[in-house]
């Protein structure tokens, strides 16, 4: 299994001459596309932290009618083809349906913009965040929150003083996992926003237009950048964890 997972990545990186990698990295189009991908992935994760955390809390702490259905709907992006997801998003956030119209009125358009990329990334990767955070909150004894209430803390204070400090690791893990999944998204992003080009779209574009040898350095470079960011975040996360915070 390790061979299956590692060899394609190694082949991509070491099968490209370093000089080609450096020259590709210096191309403005490539650099912009990598930065755009990282930025939109981070934006999607931030969106999930703000809006997905309360949802994860709801799923972890409360039993209600339709909970199973809600859980299934949240997981839906994991199973549907992402090109279909892109079309669904285009229908909702295009200018013909009311959410798209409302955002259009305040100057936010989702077709062919960074907003669109973020929405596509968030849609396909939010289940990773919500599920990790839900599990994290579920693992915290709810009686700790009850005790907090008897000590005079409101539900809001209990969340910020007890629950959040105890599940920040899950939030970080969920956000990093979501970010990693988000930046690799192609299907949904390409339908909502072919331009500006994210890194996966750029690789596809180069492969389609100029062939494998032209697409390969960009693909390798994206892989290296993702790996470095992922390793850095994980290392920082591990160090913070070992300090007992």
């Amino acid at each position, binding site marked *: 299994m390790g061979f299956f997972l590692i060899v394609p990545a190694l082949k991509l990186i070491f099968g490209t001459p370093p000089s080609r990698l450096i020259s590709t990295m210096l191309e403005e189009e490539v650099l912009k596309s990598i930065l755009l991908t990282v930025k939109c992935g981070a934006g999607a994760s931030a969106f999930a932290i703000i809006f997905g955390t309360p949802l994860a809390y709801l799923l972890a702490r409360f039993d209600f009618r339709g909970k199973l259905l809600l859980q299934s709907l949240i997981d839906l992006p994991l199973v549907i083809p992402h090109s279909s997801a892109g079309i669904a998003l285009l229908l909702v956030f295009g200018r013909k349906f009311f959410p798209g119209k409302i955002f259009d009125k305040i100057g936010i358009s989702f077709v062919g913009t960074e907003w669109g990329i973020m929405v596509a990334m968030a849609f396909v990767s939010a289940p990773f965040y919500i599920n990790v955070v839900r599990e994290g909150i579920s693992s915290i004894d709810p009686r700790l929150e009850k005790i907090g*209430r008897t000590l005079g803390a409101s539900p809001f204070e209990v969340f910020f003083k007890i629950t959040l400090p105890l599940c920040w690791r899950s939030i970080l893990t969920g956000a990093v996992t979501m970010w990693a999944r988000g930046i690799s998204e192609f299907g949904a992003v390409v339908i909502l926003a072919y331009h500006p080009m994210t890194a996966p779209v750029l690789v596809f574009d180069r492969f389609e237009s100029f062939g494998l040898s032209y697409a390969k350095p960009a693909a390798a470079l994206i892989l290296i950048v993702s790996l470095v960011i992922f390793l850095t975040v994980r290392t920082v996360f591990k160090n913070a964890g070992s300090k007992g915070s």
Partner: protein
Amino acid sequence: MLVLKEVKTSAGRFVLGPISFEMKREYLIILGPSGAGKSLLLEVIAGFRKCEGKIFLNGVEITNYPPEKRRIGLLMQDPLLFPHKNVIENIKFGAGTRDISSLIEKLKISAFADRDVNSLSGGEKQRVALARALASNPLLLLLDEPFSWLDRETREIIEGEVKSIANELHLPVIHVTHNFEEALSLADRIIIIKDGKVVQDSKPEYIFKNPANEFVARFTGNPNIYAGNIRVEGERIFFVRENLKFFLGKTVNFKDGPCQIIICPQDLIISSHPFQPKNPEENIVEGVVSSLSFMGNFYKVGIEGKIKITAYLSPQEVKSENIIPSKKVFVIIPPEAIKVIDGI
């Protein structure tokens, strides 16, 4: 003062109540078997569960108050210290600007006040949990079997401290337990509940000697429960069963009919010398010692004869009568040791 008026709630098919009682500044034990609804009652009082009826605390209706507005402290079975805070931070959580130094001193926490809560022993953790609950200046303290998992010595020390601090602070306490011995040693008053209903509400000694029914008698550890009939003979009242006849008294207002009696094991007199009843008002049973167990400060003596009866004797009594297994003995049952309880 806490007042519950017709309080009723449910959890699934289980229904608690309606329960009504008033409590003053006292140490009240809610006693009952597992699943009786004890913890559910505490959840209602603490504000974690909606209920019908009304709850008043110090004259203010708190039925619809959220838990954070009730000023009711709660200690659960586990200490539930906040693992991301150290000892002092845990205690300060609900203290606001109140000075907690005297509390830390009183509960002997100073020595480990700066420690990580995960490094504390079970007894230390419960001390911190208690200090944290008291630091929030509650009007009522709820204890949900908080010391049941501690070893006996630690449990008794901490329970003694809780009672003395509660007395000192004039703080009413409701302590839930299923352990009657623990209830006897701590309670000013005991409420026994079964299947969500109050079965008996009284002083510990009264409940022990006058259980309201068979359930209370068994739950409070009385092994001598017998079914039979009341027979009125002139002015004398008797309990009869097969070849047994016990005199109950003269002034008791009973009619002929089925009943259940309990015999208080600590009120029995055992004689190893032959003892014949001189009149029908003396209840004597002949039997053989079938078991003899030392219980710490008394002996539990099982005797089998026409009935199987258990007596609690002091070590002096066991020694003076030379009570040993298989020995023939005579059990003298004073009429006042027999209580007729509801049943049948």
